[in-house]
């Protein structure tokens, strides 16, 4: 297989992942060529390019797919169904949003050089301490990883140590994201309350409204997805990953063998939260707004359903699930505005009942059958 040259050793058996990453690379290169290079070199031949709204839409999907990978890592491989993963995503998003707010500078509607608009009209006199540092991109990048990571660490440390598992853990994570949502809705938080952060102007000096910036962010999202995927694959194929799977399947036995179960869980959880944070940070400049609605417990449940529909414990299944459900949502909200919830609800029920392994499981079954047929033919 010539394609294996492009992938690291641990991915050679991961056919789904290879197909996925190749497709991703293909789309990204096409977008770069048609939307960026051709218009740059031949301005009049621009009729070929993909419309901007498609680029941002695709970019958005890619971020959500990365989020799905993050959840699949802890749920599919470690058995921790976090119903609060959207919280990590939103925290990463808020960190990026704060950076983008600081970049506005004195171009806000009140022309205040430091304070964001919502602080000016609510009579804040100075910037709260937790906004310091966000004018620097490096600091922000650090925070995008650190804030979700730290929250996951503290929460995980407490929870895994006291051996809260299964359903209880899911409900605790739900409580966590719910509490965060309520907190971020408060205007006293100094993060824009219900409106959240919006009206971003530029990132690292490049206007967010120019097509080239959009294509760069899109490409970055694609790269982040690819790297997130490869890193996750690396982890699950490593010894650590094998141990984690052992914990999922028989926690007590693993513990008795002598593994520090809570440490394994903790590190996977923290890594996953960081991935979610990165996804959120890339999501925000593409959709142009971050608000407390992203913390909603319903978002996290929906996220779990993307993973379940795609097929958990496969990583690329999570990506497929995220793309299918989100595309379906985009399509149906336009085509069947009054009925789309019926479609979505039925999809959820049917897939949990009849597709325990998700869409990926369906492929596998199909593949197995054809292989069996081949075997039968041979034996016959």
């Amino acid at each position, binding site marked *: 297989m010539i394609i294996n040259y492009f992938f690291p050793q641990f991915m050679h058996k991961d056919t789904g992942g290879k197909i996925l990453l190749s497709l991703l690379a293909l789309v990204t290169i096409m977008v770069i060529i048609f939307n960026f290079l051709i218009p740059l070199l031949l301005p009049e031949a621009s009729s070929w390019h993909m419309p901007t709204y498609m680029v*941002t839409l695709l970019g958005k999907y890619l971020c959500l797919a990365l989020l799905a990978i993050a959840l699949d890592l802890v749920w599919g491989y470690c058995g921790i169904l976090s119903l609060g993963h959207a919280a990590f995503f939103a925290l990463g998003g808020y960190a990026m949003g704060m950076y983008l707010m600081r970049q506005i500078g004195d171009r806000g*509607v009140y022309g205040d050089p430091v304070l964001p608009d919502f602080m000016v009209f609510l009579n804040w006199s100075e910037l709260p301490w937790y906004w310091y540092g966000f004018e620097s991109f490096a600091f922000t990048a650090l925070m995008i990883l650190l804030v979700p990571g730290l929250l996951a660490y503290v929460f995980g440390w407490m929870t895994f140590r006291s051996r809260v598992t299964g359903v209880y853990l899911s409900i605790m994570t739900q409580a966590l994201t719910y509490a965060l949502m309520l907190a971020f809705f408060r*205007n006293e938080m100094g993060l824009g*309350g219900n409106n959240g952060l919006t009206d971003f102007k530029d990132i690292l000096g490049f206007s967010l409204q120019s097509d080239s910036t959009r294509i760069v962010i899109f490409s970055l999202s694609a790269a982040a997805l690819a790297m997130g995927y490869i890193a996750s694959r690396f982890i699950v194929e490593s010894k650590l990953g094998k141990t984690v799977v052992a914990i999922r399947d028989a926690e007590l036995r693993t513990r008795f063998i002598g593994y520090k179960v809570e440490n394994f869980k903790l590190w996977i959880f923290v890594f996953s939260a960081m991935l979610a944070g990165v996804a959120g940070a890339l999501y925000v400049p593409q959709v*142009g707004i971050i608000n407390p609605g992203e913390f909603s417990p319903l978002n996290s449940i929906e996220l779990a359903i993307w993973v379940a529909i795609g097929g958990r414990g496969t990583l690329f299944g999570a990506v497929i699930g995220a793309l299918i459900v989100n595309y379906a949502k985009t399509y149906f909200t336009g*085509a069947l505005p009054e009925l789309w919830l019926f479609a979505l609800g039925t999809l959820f029920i049917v897939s949990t009942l009849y597709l325990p392994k998700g869409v990926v499981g369906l492929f596998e079954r199909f593949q197995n059958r054809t292989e069996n047929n081949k075997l039968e033919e041979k034996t016959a």
Partner: protein
Amino acid sequence: MVRKSLRKLALAAVVTASTLTLAGAAWAADTIKVGVLHSLSGTMAISETTLKDTVLMMIEEQNKKGGLLGKQLEAVVVDPASNWPLFAEKTRELIEKEKVDVIFGCWTSVSRKSVLPVIEELNGLLFYPVQYEGEESSKNVFYTGAAPNQQAIPAVDYLMNDLEVKRWVLAGTDYVYPRTTNKILEAYLIAKGVKKEDIMINYTPFGHSDWQSIVSDIKKFGSQGKKTAVVSTINGDANVPFYKELGNQNISSEDIPVIAFSVGEEELSGIDTKPLVGHLAAWNYFMSVENPENEAFIKKWQAFIKSDKRVTNDPMEATYIGFEMWAKAVAKAKSVETDAVEQAMIGVEVANLTGGMAVMNKNHHLSKPVLIGEIQDDGQIETVWSTESTVAGDAWSDFLPSSKDLISDWTAPIKCGNYNTKTKKCLAK
């Protein structure tokens, strides 16, 4: 029945829209496309679905009159599903993909804030029909709902002068509209000589349902001998349990009247209004106003929606005025180009449904009359007070320190949404 036909209609609109899109660019030149960006699902569907139907009705009406500039109008309906990022996405889709010439849409402030960068970037045109907190003026947006000085301030004046209210409870849901409105009102009341201890400010989360403690506090605050009123910026769903609790704790509208800025006929039609009777609402329009234009509008609406039970409300009037103004401006500019229409809009006059003329001002806000009414047991609101003439909408409040020097003027030579009258500078980039 009604809902069915409604659904059919929406479906028909969507189907037409999509077939027309498929039909390609040749068709597009022959129609003027009107984008409709209201949530048809999710939490805001309760309020926004009605506005979508209003726009469709106006388009049908206009087409019967022969369209505009010799072309037929064509609606493009999308569902942003009460999801704020989706509002931005759908706006982009409407302008870039569907190539609409104008968008009527949005309800919540956050949805408008989400749409704003996109509409400015793509130089589109948005008509926003809901009362809001002000502190904004975009070249690409026309605000046909009330600014705080067209709703909140006259309401407080009425309470102060006619009901002789001395103590004030400013109760609101914790989001930007109540926060800003209460900031403005607090500054206004203090300027009028009300002491700080006679103002109580309270915020609750969205959908708050347990009002026991807060109503009890209001009762204590209001029963000290000074006439007390509640100025409520409580958002939709939280209102019913609030009024119920008021009634149960024996607080009548005569003891402590509540004046609400977000409770209109549409909201009242879904609840048992008995606990609300006598409480107040401030708007620019009430369905109960007797006026030939209004009666014609109600008749048209009930015929269009095929039910004589459906009510009309203020955001519908704002949509109506916005649409009529846009049609006039397009006719005047002889073009649907954003810049031409934007300049033609300023100064356009359309008859209010409640009498008098609404004028589009230089700051993209309307001059409209302000009405204050009492809620009746049939869910209607009866006018008890109105301004003598129209009040011009103020984009930047004079009562906030940050915006008192700012004005908006989109005519030459200023052409600026946030012009500082002291420094004579436009703060926009």
